[in-house]
Every structure is written in C-alpha cells, then in structure tokens.
C-alpha cells in the first residue's frame, strides 16, 4: 500500500509541476483590444467611507477615460495583503497601478519590480517616498492641519491639553496631520498629548477614554481621521464632558458632518477625494500614453463647522 500511495502522490506532484511549467510563459499577456488597463489597490473601503467613495470615483474616472480598471483593494487594513495584491497586479500585466497605501513603507520591492516591467505607479492620498512612484494626488495634510490647529486655538477659550488620536507612527498622512495641528497648538501655549491609534477606531475610543480619565485638563480632542474623531467624541460623551471638551476630525465624511450638524463634533477638514481620484487617474493614463501629466497635486482642505455644514451634507 505504502508504495502505491507514494506512487500516486508522486504522480500528482509531478502532474502539478508539469501543469505549472507547461503553462508558465515568459511574461504576462497584453490586454485585448489595446485598451489600457489600470490596477487600483486602496485602503479598504469597508473600513471608512472615505475610501469607499474613493474606489467609486476611481471607477467613474476610469470609465470617463475609457480605460479598464481592476480594483484589488484588500478588505482588511493589512499592509502585507496590499503588497500581495500589488504583486498580483504586476503579474496580470496592467500598465499602471494606483496605490492608496495602507502603509506607505511596505512597497519598496514591488515598486522596483513594477518599474522593471515599465508599469507606471502613482499614489493617491498617501505619499510613498520612492523614486518609482511618479505622481501623487493628496490633500495638503500639513497645511490643512495647520488651518485646523489655528481653528482650535481660535475656538478654545481656556488653554490646556489637547489630545491627538493619531494614525500609525511613520505613516506619512497621519504624521503630517499630527505635526500641522501640533505645531500651531504648541506655538500658542497649548500642551499636546499625542497617542498613535493605528487608524483603529476601537483603539481611538480606548485611548481617549483612558486619557480623559487621566488628564482632567484636556480641552480638546483631535482625531486624525473622522471615524477616530467620532470614537473620541464617544469617549467625551461617555464621561459627560461634551460641554467642556471640543472634538475635531479630519476627512469631512458624512457621519462627521451629521455629527457637526447635531452640535457634537465641532469641526472637521474636508478632503476632496473625488478630485484626487480624477487627477491621479488622468495622470497615470497620460504617463502611459507618453503625454505631459500632473506629477504632484496637493489639494487644500478646508474647515467645515456648524456655519457651513449644510452646504456639504448630502
């Protein structure tokens, strides 16, 4: 029996190798019909409406540009999985890849591989510090955060501590938002408590709850992303501090706007993800066609508060 089992096992293993090698060609197929194919891997849309909207805008702009779009965005915020999805796109022979990075530090080797295959790689929302990334469209996070920092200064009567609920440390977008707000607040005599929450809403809630209990003189909470800010708001409400502690966000997402309308969240920064999607899609298509293109677009964010929220609430 043992010999027979081994023979069958070996035969199947040989068959697998034969199938693999027989089918394995030197490179990926070119897309049919000469139509450009663009791959998109973004932050999971299921985790935040900002990225769900982004994926939709990408789809709309791809249709407008007459190109195929393959969306392989992961469903969980796992940088390794996103890197794998990018490697799969490279093997599929796409001509361009748009990356909305879960973490901007994870792509080094994949970008090099893409460049070797002459695939144009561009970034949206989060900058990737790599020579093979040839275009970027994002909110000017640093300057927008400074605008918000000034807004917080102007709307806080008593100087005290401000809690910043951050993204992942070393993440370009989160760091810029933290730095912009922090610089203005510290220049105006506020003390800043920064806590990295890895873009995780539960962690933001837990951190805010703990810090509000430990620091009675917190006068404001800034969440570097709207769902994180809403988690901070939940902690403020739980402790019955809504009249003493103001909460600010960043993104301009519908739930945050509704909260502003309801008089709970004080303000948020509106990001224009539609413009980001349009600009970056046009840039990647133009680069593939060898035409002049936008290489860097920093879009100014602006403050939405109770005075103008109606204009942006859908």
């Amino acid at each position, binding site marked *: 029996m043992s010999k027979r089992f081994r023979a069958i096992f070996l035969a199947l293993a040989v068959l697998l190798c034969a199938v693999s090698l027989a089918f394995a*060609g030197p490179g990926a197929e070119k897309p049919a019909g000469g139509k450009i194919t663009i791959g998109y891997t973004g932050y999971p849309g299921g985790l935040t409406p900002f990225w769900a909207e982004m994926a939709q805008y990408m789809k709309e702009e791809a249709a407008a540009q007459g190109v195929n779009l393959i969306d392989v965005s992961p469903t969980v915020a796992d940088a390794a999985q996103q890197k794998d999805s990018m490697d799969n796109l490279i093997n599929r022979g796409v001509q361009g890849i748009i990356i909305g990075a879960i973490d901007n530090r994870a792509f080094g080797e994949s970008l090099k591989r893409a460049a070797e295959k002459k695939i144009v790689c561009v970034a949206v929302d989060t900058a990737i510090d790599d020579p093979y990334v040839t275009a970027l469209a994002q909110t000017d996070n640093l300057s927008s955060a400074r605008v918000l920092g000034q807004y917080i200064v102007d709307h806080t009567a008593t100087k005290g501590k401000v809690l910043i609920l951050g993204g992942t440390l070393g993440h370009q977008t989160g760091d810029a938002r933290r730095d912009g707000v922090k610089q203005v607040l510290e220049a105006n005599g506020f003390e800043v408590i920064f806590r990295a929450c890895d873009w995780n809403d539960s962690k933001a809630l837990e951190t805010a709850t703990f810090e509000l209990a430990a620091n009675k003189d917190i006068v404001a909470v800034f969440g570097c992303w709207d769902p994180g800010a809403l988690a901070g708001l939940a902690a403020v409400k739980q402790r019955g501090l809504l009249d003493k502690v103001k909460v600010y966000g960043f993104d301009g997402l519908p739930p945050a706007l509704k909260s502003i309308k309801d008089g709970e969240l004080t303000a948020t920064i509106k990001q224009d993800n539609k413009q980001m999607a349009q600009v970056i899609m046009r840039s990647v298509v133009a680069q593939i066609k060898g035409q002049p293109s936008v290489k860097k677009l920093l879009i100014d964010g602006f403050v939405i508060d109770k005075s103008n929220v109606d204009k942006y609430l859908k």
Partner: protein
Amino acid sequence: MRATGSTAARSVMWKGVQPLLGLVIIYALFAAVSGTFRTFDTLKTILTQAVILGTMAAGPTIVLIAGGLDLSIGSIFCLVAVGAGLMLNAHWPVALLVIASLAIGAASGAVNGFITIGTGIPAFIGTLGMMKVYRGLAEILGMNKDMSKFPASFQAIGSGYLIPILIMAVSFLLVWIFLSRTRLGFNCYAIGGSNEVSRLAGVPVRRYYLIYYTLGGFFAALSALIQASRLNFTNSSWGNGMELDAIAAVIIGGTSLSGGVGGIGRTVIGVLIVTTLNAGLSHLGVSSSWQRISIGVVIILAVWLDVVQRRRELKA
C-alpha cells in the same frame, strides 16, 4: 479481516492524495481560465506569498498532530515583530536580533505549553488568554514608536524570491525530519492519538508538549522576522487572525484537528491551496471578500471530507 484492512489502507491513501489532487485541479483551472495566471512570475509570486503563512503553519502542524492547539501564535508573531523593530531601532546587530527574536518566540510558545500542561486548563482557553497577554505586551512595547526603515542586511531576509522561499523550504524540511525521524516526532502522533495511552506507555507527555508548543512559538517568530524584513516596518496591529489562517491551512492540508493524524507535507499542500486560491481569484478580478469566502468553503469541505471518511472507517 483482509478486506477490512485493505479498505482502511485505501482510505488512508485516499486521504493523503485528496489535498494534492485538489491543488492540481485548482491550479490547472486557474491556468486554463486566466492567461496572466500561467506565467512563471505568477508561480514565483505564489511561492513568495506562501512564505509567511507557510513558515507560521509549520508550528501548528506539530501542535495539532499532538492534539494541542495554540491560538496565541498570531500575537506571538506581533510581539516578535515589535521586539525586532525595537532592537533594530536600538541598532542591534542583525544576527543577534534574529537569535533574540527567535528566542522570544520560542519562550512565548514554551509559556503556553507550561500554562496548558501545568494548570490543566484546556489549550483553547489557556492560549486564548495568552493571545491577549502577548497582544497587550506588543501594544505596550510598540506604543508611540516608529519602527521602520530597517538596515539592508535585515531587509535581505525577506527580499526577492530566493531567500524567503529557501527559509520556508528549510523550515518544512526540519519539521519533516522532526516528525518522521525523531522520537519526539513519532511520539507526537502517539500523544495526539491517545494522550492517556502514551502516558501509560511511558512517554513523557508533559515534557514533550512543552517542546511542541515551544516549536510553535519559534516558527511564529521566524515568520514575523520575514514579514518585518519584507515590509520594512512593523507595528503592534500585526498578526490579528493569523493564527486562524495558519490553522486553516494545516486543516485544509488534511491534518486532523483531533490530533494523531497529519504531516508537514499536507501542510505544504494546504498552504499552497490557500495561496493559489487567493492569487488565482485575484487574477480573475474577484474581490478579496470573495477570496475569504472561498477559503471558508474550502475549510468546511476539507473537514467534511475528513468527517465522512472517519464515519466510513468506523463502519468498516
């Protein structure tokens, strides 16, 4: 008697062949349907993408065969990744930090084994508790720290195709030697088959369990080092749910959850089935949500086949 023996033998043979047959069919189907799937680059990518899961799954293969269960390996993965990041930030020599990281992983696994056998708490509960402990420790250690941009000598561990695939292959080979050529390995099957009978036969079950759990932690640590070097950063959110992915790959390969049956060859096939499914579906433009669903269906199918065959064996 002879007929019964022959039926049982055929059943064992068929069980071993099924996962490999499944892998061949899955690979051939994707290769037939997707033009971009049947490239040498895709083959290399599948093997590279299998490295993290494969290296990690080597541990649960041993633990599950011995009738144990370790739910904390995802958190050990995270703890080791954070620990390695901190050591790299502190400019430790790469060789030293690799040894230290593997030691942390092995020690964490040993603690799990000690808790499980020392207290008599079911492995599910004991390792569930340690999963929280290791995760909490990783969060405390990694809090407010940027652990990224590692030296090239460290990045080399997970770069390219060759080195990571080689590490995975050596891990599999070592586990194969362990399970098939050592007393510890033989007794792994005996203990998994019947803990009590093994004890009565003089096998030092408690001591052996400690070693099996230690090996589980070791391979989780090795896997974490490869991922940290591959992505060039670490943080304390890593490894969530990875223990279940690894256990799923082991089960899909045909190792029994109830212990006593299995092997590293089966795990290799299980890991390749999961990775090929993910890559193949991705080539067909299927979203990652559907990829998860398909893996779930494959797990249920694999266990169902196992259950059906066990019933047949009992009847025979």
